[in-house]
């Protein structure tokens, strides 16, 4: 970067007053952040180095160094939950982006009546995750679920969807991808609408097929939006909780348990604040890395997505 000469002028009295007012207006936001995020985070890190089981209040909360962390390293259930979370990320993030891209391409057609398509994309986004989980749990029900009914209609054998470890994972994939792909589609649709029509017209003149147009124009032009969607989905996928909670509650056994669910279980069910905090810190570190990538990306690209 070349240094541009900066003319430092002294702030006038009015400007200083304005700046003071500015800080005053920002104060409520910062106060909320301190109370709801910063202080809890400090407390989280503090607790992660302590023995703190609410079931044993007489033990107090002594400092135990990295014991909670080393406990995690030797805890097979932690590793299993981490592996499951990783599988959910690897499958559902690209899955949602691919399905979302398909939906966005379909939704980008020049409809005269736009609301059915727009609402078709908005409704899955607006539903609570647990509702999607409950609905798909009903779809995958063994006896009277829709999925097995369709399988039987085609002469197949019904599957024990949510009580088989592997099939349960697949059922959860489907629910997560259905629920999250519509938000991805909305983001990508906004991206599609910024691609100049003239590019396609020129390609048409040159005789490019629609397949070539997709690979040569649509995908490259959509790249920034796809990257944003990927990173965004990853940040939420790290925290996967609601849908498996509603569909299987981590079962059968702990076959579909995610890291978020294991943290919740340790804290709320086992009341082991120390261990739960250590696991939460580990998750935070991973999430922070992805967030950092996201923020770097948005600062280089004006394209921003909110939610």
């Amino acid at each position: 970067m070349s240094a541009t000469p900066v003319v430092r002028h002294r702030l006038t009295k009015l400007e200083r007053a304005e700046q003071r007012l500015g800080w005053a207006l920002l104060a409520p936001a910062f106060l909320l952040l301190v109370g709801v995020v910063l202080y809890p985070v400090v407390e989280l890190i503090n607790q992660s180095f302590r023995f703190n089981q609410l079931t044993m209040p007489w033990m107090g909360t002594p400092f135990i160094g990295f014991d909670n962390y080393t406990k995690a390293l030797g805890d097979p259930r932690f590793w299993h939950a981490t592996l499951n979370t990783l599988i959910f990320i690897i499958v559902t993030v690209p899955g949602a982006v691919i399905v979302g891209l398909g939906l966005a391409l379909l939704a980008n057609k020049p409809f005269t009546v736009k609301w059915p398509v727009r609402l078709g994309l908005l409704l899955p986004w607006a539903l609570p995750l647990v509702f999607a989980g409950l609905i798909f749990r009903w779809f995958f029900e063994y006896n009277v679920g829709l999925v097995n009914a369709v399988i039987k209609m085609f002469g197949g054998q019904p599957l024990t969807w949510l009580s088989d470890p592997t099939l349960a994972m697949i059922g959860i994939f489907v629910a997560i991808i259905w629920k999250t792909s519509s938000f991805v589609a909305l983001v990508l649709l906004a991206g599609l609408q910024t691609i100049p029509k003239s590019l396609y017209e020129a390609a048409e003149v040159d005789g490019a097929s629609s397949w070539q147009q997709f690979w040569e124009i649509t995908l490259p032009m959509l790249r920034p939006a796809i990257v944003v969607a990927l990173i965004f989905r990853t940040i939420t996928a790290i925290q996967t909780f609601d849908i498996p909670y509603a569909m299987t509650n981590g079962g059968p056994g702990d076959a579909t348990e995610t890291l978020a669910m294991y943290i919740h279980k340790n804290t709320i069910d086992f009341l082991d604040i120390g261990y739960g905090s250590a696991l939460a810190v580990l998750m935070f570190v991973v999430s922070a890395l992805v967030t950092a990538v996201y923020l770097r990306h948005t600062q280089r690209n004006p394209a921003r997505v909110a939610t």
Partner: protein
Amino acid sequence: MTMPRFNKTAVLWIAALVVAVNGFFPALWILFTSFKTETELMRVPITIFPTAPTFENYIRVFTDQPIHLFLWNSFMVATLSTLLCVTVSALAAYALVRLRMPSPGLILTTLLAITMFPLISLMVPLFQVMRSLELLNTWWALILPYAVLSMPVCTMVLVSFFQDIPAELENAAMIDGCSRIGALWHVVIPLTAPGVFTAGILAFVNAWDEFLLALTLAPRVSARTVPVGITLYQGEFAFPWPIISAALVIAIVPISILIAVFQERVVGGLTQGGMKG
């Protein structure tokens, strides 16, 4: 190469149908399910439309489970957290846009980064904090975190709307004896009403949908929000699907109407910045 007219229309219809069916089908299926009797629901082969439609499930939702209480809790938590969030965000956004703050971009990024903190990590200490403040199972345990949850979206939406208001309008108001805050309230907010509204809807939906914190910080039946209340419905032996489906319909309808009425604003707010890059 031009496609025949019929083909083009057919493609449009198929595209619209795929997107709409994908979006509506699960909710519609639940709607049909909610009018079926328990015996019809357990019968094989399954039916699509209810053969003997009944309202019984809707009555039982209110008699077996206090869903009205869940709806009330959800409504109040979502409304109050939205008001808090939009107010705080509007003040912050105004300061960032108008008041010569040093590096407003950095402040906005910090805000974003802090609020992207995984909820599950916040859940553990928030549980502790709310417990010691004796706020567990109260609306406040959820209102404060939800307001923060939606602060980045709201602030970003409002910043982009505020930027479009010419400063001269406020200056004129201030020459007429309005204070800064007066100008914000009487000039900027009315002119950016659509933006304020968009921010509000997004905050409301976020709060209405949230599950993890609601489950952790307000699990008692009297304090449950709708997502927690419905998910934790437990029958004596099996999951009570007829009641669940009716409850889901009751919970989905209000949010669907909200989304349907304000769909353009919601889409605009969600894809804020509109991929300008």
